[in-house]
């Protein structure tokens, strides 16, 4: 009997603690990145480059047709053309588009100014353009809509603050920032369940996304040892990654290729 009472008391205390903690968690919010101490300057005369290709092996996944019936505005925008799901797309030449490649390790000793140019995310035809993109910590994300319907932008990060805001047609663009590096943050629209984008938030400007030829290039890398990571949405809800180590000499261009399988 006493034991039970004790348990209940504990529960009660726990509840108060949790409520208290909860409040703190959602009210504190970091928006600035701490300046790196004693950063090494980059000698622009010696920088090199990493280029490469992302190959795909196995059966091409069958891409489902997106049913936009729910919102006639979306249907109209595509004028009867069938729109397919973007995750799982494979290029004609057997390479993968929409692979996010970035320097995961090796650039920590440098500091980088936050670019003043914002990255623009457009909502067009009830699809996100671009589907996969990179952004630096603290850089502005400029979200616009080209659709005469209400959209909703809902990034679902693990390390950053989650937010969820609507953008009615004609409303002002949204400007947002991410405070911590995170690869990848899925973004969904709570109005149109099929809409999906992925954002790679990095501390350095060394990232690239493969296009319709499956290639990428990361320029301006000072000489040194790096871990390059490639991320693709293929093969599961959170996608999959591959790491490769590479050493760059002064003014050197190294080739790093990745190959993903259908899981």
């Amino acid at each position, binding site marked *: 009997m006493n034991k039970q009472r004790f348990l209940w008391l504990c529960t009660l205390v726990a509840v108060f603690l949790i409520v208290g903690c909860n409040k703190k968690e959602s009210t504190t919010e970091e928006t600035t990145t701490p300046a790196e101490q004693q950063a090494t300057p980059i000698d622009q005369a010696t920088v090199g480059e990493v280029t490469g290709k992302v190959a795909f092996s196995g059966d091409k996944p069958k891409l489902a047709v997106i049913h936009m019936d729910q919102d006639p505005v979306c249907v109209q925008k595509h004028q009867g053309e069938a729109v397919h799901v973007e995750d799982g797309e494979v290029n004609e030449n057997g390479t993968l588009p929409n692979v996010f490649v970035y320097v995961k390790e090796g650039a920590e000793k440098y500091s980088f100014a936050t670019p003043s140019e914002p990255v623009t995310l457009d909502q067009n035809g009830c699809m996100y353009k671009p589907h996969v993109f990179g952004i630096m910590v603290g850089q502005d994300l400029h979200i616009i809509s080209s659709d005469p319907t209400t959209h909703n932008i809902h990034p679902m990060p693990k390390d950053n603050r989650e937010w969820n805001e609507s953008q009615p047609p004609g409303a002002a663009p949204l400007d947002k920032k991410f405070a911590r590096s995170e690869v990848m943050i899925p973004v*969904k629209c709570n109005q149109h369940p099929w809409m999906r984008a992925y954002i790679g938030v990095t501390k350095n400007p060394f990232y690239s996304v493969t296009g319709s030829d499956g290639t990428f290039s990361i320029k301006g890398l000072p000489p040194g040892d790096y871990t390059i990571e490639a991320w693709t949405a293929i093969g599961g809800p959170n996608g999959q990654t591959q790491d490769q180590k590479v050493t760059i000499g002064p003014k050197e261009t190294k080739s790093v290729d990745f190959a993903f399988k259908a899981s």
Partner: protein
Amino acid sequence: MPEAHAETAHQHHAPTKFIWKYIFSLDHKVIGKQYYFLALFSVVVGMILSWLMRIHLVWPNAKLYGLDLLSPAGAPGGVMTPEYYLSLMTLHGTIMIFFVLTTAPQSGFGNYFLPIQIGAEDMAFPRLNMLSFWTTFVALMVLLSTFFVTDGPPISGWTGYPPLSAVGSSAGPGEGLGQTLWVISIAIFCIGSLLGALNFIATTLDLRTKGMKLMRLPLTCWAWFVTAVLGLLSFAVLFGACALLLLDRVGGTSFFIPGGLIVSDKIMPHSGGSPLLYQHLFWFFGHPEVYIAILPGMGVTSHIISCFARKPIFGYRAMAYSLMAIGFLSFTVWGHHMFLSGMSPYSAFSFSLFTMAIGVPSAIKTFNWLGTLWGGKIRFTSAMLFSIGFVSLFVTGGLSGIFLAQPQLDPMLHATYFVVAHFHMVMGVAAIFGMFAGTYFWFPKMFGRMMNETWGKVHFWTTFIGVYCVFMPMHFIGVEGAIRRYSTWTDNYLIPMIPVHEFMTIAALFTGAVQFIFLINVFWSMFKGEKATDNPWKGTSLEWTVPSPPPFDNFAGKHPVVYHGPYEYGVPGKDKDYVMQDSPEKIEDDE
């Protein structure tokens, strides 16, 4: 027994310091006024929220300057987002139901007049009384704080159905801290209401003065008593529901959340709960709550109609028994909110029959009000106008309940504007008419000055016509299938109804605006009104035997003795046309 009680120790000296006299006062009259002003503040907030909602419904792109300062995310550039509409809707409902309809008629007027009408010096537990007001105050502050949290006020409606309200911020903006604060606020409010209810019950049963038999209680006291019983039994259940919901939100439990839910692409870490359980608990409170809002209005209306028709209330016993019948039946009908919720369709039979049965005592009351008017000499004071208006609105709102009580018609009407019209008419506007009537009637007693009658009549006519213009069209489009809780009209069949919404919005802006006549009248009369006599309306109940405003202990140390029922108006063979309750003269027809 109805004896004056010496053993209940009261503080007999009026406090002199400001803080003890006006802030943490133990005097039921001050607490009653505190509740009244809390409700008055809340009703203004709630009404402004309804304006914003109505404006957004018909002019969705309107820029509401200043709103972006309150909520940059909810109204970027002053244009309201769909989620902000739902936030305002949630707060409108919560504020109006809890902090206006539950506080003003019961805790406000009840606190002030129950002890005086039964001949007591104060409530049974003055300290508890003070505590219940300040608990309610804290609840309101917690609720209003949701305006200022990062992701905005909650969006899950005043009913707060889980899983939407339980799974946290994945379910949408406002479902984070805002929703948690909402649950906490309601839980605190429940505590305040429970304390208040206890106090009302004890006071009514124990503190009646000599001769104040139960069947000599004014009908207001009957209404407050039955309401207190409803509050005691229902708020306890709501408190439980809130506690469980809070645990689901912050404690990782799964009382109301079943397994396998995927919200915003995240698998929820819950299993085994039932959303229907919450609905049962909520409506077990929710339906009696409707009567908590309306019963005091019925009491006030009966009290005033008898006074200004200058004749006894028709069927006093029937009125008292029907209050009890409504109170009892109100606990048996909650399932009519859930006909389509997925509960067993068999239970719809009993819920529906009980709901129809509750129409019977409601009809009895209406017939008796008409019976009271019949053969009377009606004086159209502002209080009387609002009371007659109450009867009209109660009839209109009650009759739409006959549709909604039938499960077989629910597929046509559930969650449409027909329902919105129904509950606004019957528990919203009618109850508020009860409050207006009470204010015009008792203001002289509470503040010692008369309200301006001319402006009172202007206020009545504009409001009465206004509310019919706002809520009657909701029935019409509701029948056609206009869905409630939509922030914008995108469905093909809803778009042609927009002109009707425009009409209702304009009517709502007008009706809301004329309420400022009332507000100005209240505050102006408080200081500048004509001095009131002890009994300006020639009333018979005990509140009219004491000075206006009454002294600290109401009866100046004396204990009144009651000889008659409360509604001896138009007594044949008397000089005056009324006999006060404490007048020892004989009446032939006396019970």
